[in-house]
């Protein structure tokens, strides 16, 4: 069993990691059995994340956010208050909450964003990203270190990394 903290390979069933002392008795991280599962369990999210993503302030207008999406050809914007992540604004939020013909209104990003988005850490494994994307039914995962947004991962980024292993 690989320790999720230090990656030390322990004998299956041990209660504590021999490498760092972490209590791993209750965690159940499987061992890789082929190239695909090795990729999911060993590759880190930092390898596929877009670093320093374009973001928007929580008080910005929706029109500004739409302009950012168009200019950078992106589908989601981490929403910041100061330097901290407070939400995410996606195309989905726009379509669900604002009629296109009303887009000239001065509603703020705060009104339309999804607050407290699901996040991942740079050192999380690729399998965690797939887990989050499927179980939480989201398409974008901000990558955070402490309070700072350091990247963003899209469903597409994960698929792109997996394609070589999937098609052999």
């Amino acid at each position: 069993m690989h320790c999720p903290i230090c990656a030390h390979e322990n004998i299956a069933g041990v209660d504590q990691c021999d490498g760092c002392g972490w209590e791993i008795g209750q965690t159940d991280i499987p061992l890789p059995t082929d190239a695909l599962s090795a990729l999911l369990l060993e590759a880190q999210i930092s390898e596929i994340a877009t670093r320093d993503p374009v973001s928007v302030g929580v008080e910005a207008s929706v029109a500004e956010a739409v302009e950012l999406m168009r200019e950078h050809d992106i589908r989601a914007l981490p929403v910041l208050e100061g330097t901290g992540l407070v939400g995410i604004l996606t195309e989905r939020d726009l379509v669900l909450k604002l009629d296109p013909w009303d887009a000239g209104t001065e509603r703020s990003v705060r009104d339309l964003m999804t607050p407290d988005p699901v996040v991942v850490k740079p050192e999380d494994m690729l399998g965690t990203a797939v887990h989050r994307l499927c179980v939480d039914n989201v398409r974008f995962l901000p990558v955070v270190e402490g309070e700072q947004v350091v990247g963003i991962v899209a469903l597409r980024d994960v698929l792109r990394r997996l394609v070589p292993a999937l098609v052999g």
Partner: protein
Amino acid sequence: MPVSDEFRRTPISALVRRPLNSVGIDTTLRAAVQLLREENVRYIGVLEGTRLAGMLTERDLVKRAYGSAVGPDTPVSEVMNASPRTLHPQDSLQTALDLLDRERYRHVALVDDRGRPHGVVTIRGIMQFLAESMPETVLNLPPDPTKAPSTAEGA
């Protein structure tokens, strides 16, 4: 069976979870947006008769509708993508994967020889298929291993 073998053997139609929600080509933007919301989908087909004439996606709305001069009565045909890439229902899953990856699409409609739509293959559908094919590696992971309980539930 290794998942990569499953990908090669699985017909593309196995990933179509539901039929393509569609509107007629003369439908207003208001009605099209309403359908996107009601069905909680990110794309709809636009039909001319029974033939797929275009697709309307969230992306099309952000690129061509928000902040432009469109009104609720604008025909959907003025905002849709009138030449979407499509696949045939007999195409392989690997072909779909290549296309979605290479062309950066998120979904591709399946269209038969007569131009009739037969559902959509999406990146999410493929990812879900992958997760279900290897649940022990993906779905059973603790969401955050560092927060896994150190004692059994209820102990």
